[in-house]
């Protein structure tokens, strides 16, 4: 059963918001787009198909099994697509006259009608992949009611053994969510760890050992300009921007035990949060900016705690298992994902606040660094296959996983960007 409702968006466009139980992914076909007036530069429909498949919300009909390849409505046989069990069909054309445009139309096969038609100018013909991701975002939003994340980006660390890559060893990489368009943000022969996004998606923070000790840097992605945060003896690690972007939670040991601090990025003022003689690390802000969830072994084993920044009240969140660490909070603050150790294996687990239950999400081992897509629907994490570090993305509500591997080395510490527009 479905609920269909019509809502007017800010741009006064009529969108159709369809929700239904996550029982069965809806079957969609993406017919290859036609190209006129310019050479086909990227397999657009293929990119859209892969995007929608990775989301876990669609059963994407294979292009090889299509009986016809329509690019306009007159070529569509609704009967034929219905027999194939296809519920939605996307067709499109790329045309160049003076300017280059893409036109794409999503058809509802069951009701034999167009759900939307969109014509967009392509200003940068060498950014065709971005065009495809924007189409995927549009289709996803119309059919699920949630914003698509196919145009967002990833940060990750690429590590290559010294013997193979004597010149660098560590790279901080920025890429599209499908791993394409990878750009090196920073490279070093010394470790780079804990990359994280500013909430505006324009800056990143990370820990670099380039001065032979861990120190936090902030770097603007567009310009490459960077600066080191005021650094203290011992650990300077685990930077996490506050939701409004003016403060940074971080971990300092100052020659003693590691504690969570909040640095005001304007004044440089430091505030120590929840001090304890144990290890406190991995701070993560709740979306309202009022709490920090962190890992502490103050109870004897690493567990997750929440500190309210106003009342300073500290609440222990995890009890099941002897190792629960590195929380990431869902964008709607409905719960967290974190690293959970069970039967001597490390998995990614999820815990909702209401009802408060825990669910292990991954069946690989040595899983770490969970990151949630900005729409809350996808989980990305790092794991190992053989002795190789790889990334895996899975739909939070279950579904097939997609592995992201690099032929160059180990991939680690993925961080999904916020929405970028």
């Amino acid at each position: 059963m479905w609920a269909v409702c019509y809502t007017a968006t800010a741009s006064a466009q009529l969108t159709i918001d369809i929700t239904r139980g996550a029982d069965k992914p809806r079957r969609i076909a993406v017919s290859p787009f036609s190209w006129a007036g310019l050479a086909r530069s990227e397999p657009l429909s293929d990119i859209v198909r892969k995007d929608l498949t990775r989301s876990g919300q669609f059963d994407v009909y294979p292009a090889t099994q299509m009986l016809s390849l329509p690019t306009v409505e007159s070529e569509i046989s609704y009967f034929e697509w219905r027999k194939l069990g296809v519920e939605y069909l996307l067709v499109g054309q790329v045309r160049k006259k003076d300017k280059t445009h893409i036109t794409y139309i999503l058809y509802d096969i069951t009701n034999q009608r167009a759900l939307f038609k969109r014509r967009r100018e392509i200003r940068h013909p060498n950014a065709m992949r971005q065009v495809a991701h924007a189409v995927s975002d549009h289709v996803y939003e119309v059919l699920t009611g949630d914003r698509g994340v196919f145009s967002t980006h990833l940060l990750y660390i690429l590590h290559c053994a010294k013997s193979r890559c004597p010149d660098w060893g560590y790279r901080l990489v920025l890429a599209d969510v499908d791993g394409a368009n990878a750009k090196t943000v920073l490279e070093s022969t010394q470790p780079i760890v804990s990359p994280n996004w500013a909430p505006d998606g324009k800056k990143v923070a990370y820990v670099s050992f380039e001065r032979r000790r861990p120190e936090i840097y902030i770097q603007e992605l567009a310009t490459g300009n960077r600066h080191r945060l005021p650094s203290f003896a011992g650990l300077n690690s685990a930077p996490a921007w506050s939701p409004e972007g003016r403060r940074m939670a971080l971990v300092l040991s100052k020659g003693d035990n590691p504690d969570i601090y909040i640095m005001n990025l304007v004044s440089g003022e430091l505030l120590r949060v929840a001090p304890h003689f144990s290890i406190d690390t991995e701070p993560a802000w709740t979306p309202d900016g009022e709490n920090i969830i962190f890992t502490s072994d103050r109870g004897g084993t690493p567990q997750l705690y929440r500190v309210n920044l106003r009342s300073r009240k500290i609440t222990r969140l995890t009890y099941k298992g002897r190792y629960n660490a590195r929380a990431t909070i869902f964008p709607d603050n409905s719960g967290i994902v974190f690293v959970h150790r069970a039967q001597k294996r490390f998995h990614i687990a999820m815990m909702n606040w209401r009802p408060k239950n825990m669910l292990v999400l991954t069946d690989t081992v040595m899983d770490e660094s969970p990151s949630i897509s900005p729409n809350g629907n996808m989980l990305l994490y790092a794991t190992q296959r053989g002795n190789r570090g790889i990334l895996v993305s899975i739909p939070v509500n279950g579904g097939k996983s997609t592995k992201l591997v690099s032929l160059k080395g180990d991939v680690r510490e993925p961080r999904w960007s916020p929405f970028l527009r």
Partner: protein
Amino acid sequence: MNIRMIYLTAFLFAIVAGCGSPDVAPPPSDEGDDPISIADESEAALPDEDVLSDPDEGIAGAEILSADVEEITEEVGDYATIVYFDFDKSDLTAEAVNTLDTVVQVMLDSDRVIRLEGHADARGTREYNLALGERRAMSVADYLVFNGVPRDRIEPVSYGEESPVAFGNNEAAWAQNRRVEIK
């Protein structure tokens, strides 16, 4: 001559002559953890697998920012005296104390400045392991200071799990990586 004495020799030699030989690390007794077995799948790209594009070729003409790194030529483990720890622990073992007593003597007989590089094994989260490596380095520092070594001649620093000396997902490798290197 036992293994610890070999380390001591290497350490002393490093101090006196400024050179030495790489250590062969002895894994300490473990906590009884079973190794995690990871199925080694084919390296070929599977249907549900995407190959990340190579950042080298990702952007034409874009400037890659390189960290301003001073040339560091030493190899991990070179010239180092090493003490080992149990999983998620920073307490000094009896064996570590023996080793450190020798280090104390060397420090008191010289004016050398040392770095204490704390490390963790690959299990658990990276930031936690960075903190754990720090706590291990501090644990060694505290022992040295308690025994009379001036604090300003000791520089503790943590590398977490980022600089392993042994690779592989088994206790033998992990045990060698849970360490503080005294350089």
